[in-house]
């Protein structure tokens, strides 16, 4: 019987896109090695944590969903991959079993990336906006 699992992973806020990609590849390879299938790998975005974890006020969440027929070895390997002691990026992880017939829809809190501009972010946002407009101009020239 195929079982569906879900792993929520909390990483350090400074995680780069390459590192996230690397994490996704590692998970995907592990799941494939154990003849499972990766259902989804989602980046929730940056969040303010309810309390300090490893001296970080912020963190980035990733939600990974996968299916496996004989999951014991896979879960064991994932445990080693996520092991907080061995991994500099991951601060917390939680693997739970999903109902295979249940829907994949879920609610999550709003991330800081989605919340409209706040004062501390204004400078970053305006910079990115300028970049955008420049790119658009170039496109128009073409």
């Amino acid at each position, binding site marked *: 019987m195929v079982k569906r699992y879900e792993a929520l992973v*909390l990483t350090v806020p400074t995680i780069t896109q390459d590192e996230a990609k690397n994490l996704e590849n590692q998970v995907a390879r592990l799941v494939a090695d154990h003849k499972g299938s990766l259902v989804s790998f989602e980046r929730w975005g940056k969040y303010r944590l309810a309390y300090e*974890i490893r001296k970080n006020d912020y963190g980035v969440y990733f*939600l990974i969903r996968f299916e496996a027929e004989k999951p014991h070895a896979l879960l064991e390997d994932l445990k080693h991959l996520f092991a907080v002691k061995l991994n500099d990026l991951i601060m*917390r992880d*939680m693997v739970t079993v999903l109902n295979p017939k249940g829907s994949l829809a*879920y*609610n*999550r*809190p709003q991330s800081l990336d989605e919340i409209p501009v706040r004062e501390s972010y204004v400078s970053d946002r305006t910079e990115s906006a300028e970049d955008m407009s420049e790119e658009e101009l170039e496109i128009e020239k073409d």
Partner: protein
Amino acid sequence: MTKKIKLKISARLLKKRVRRQGFGGGKHCRFANNPEQAALIDYKNATFLRGFLTERGKILPSRISGTSARYQRLLAQAIRKARVMGLLPYSSPNN
């Protein structure tokens, strides 16, 4: 004998009776017989779970929220999971 038994209504039952009559019906659980609401109980859904915490971050007792025992258990489990993941506080600073 019957008279004696009638006299022995406990204070708890009396209060219950007063509440039933006084405040227009008893408590009701918002999850029982309401699968849509019950489906919202999930450790990822921290915004929703936050409504079941006190200002200090404690889990709201079912005697306040009126949640039935079954769903209070599920709620508490979800809140505890969310706390581990840093989505909800264990306790909030008192300021």
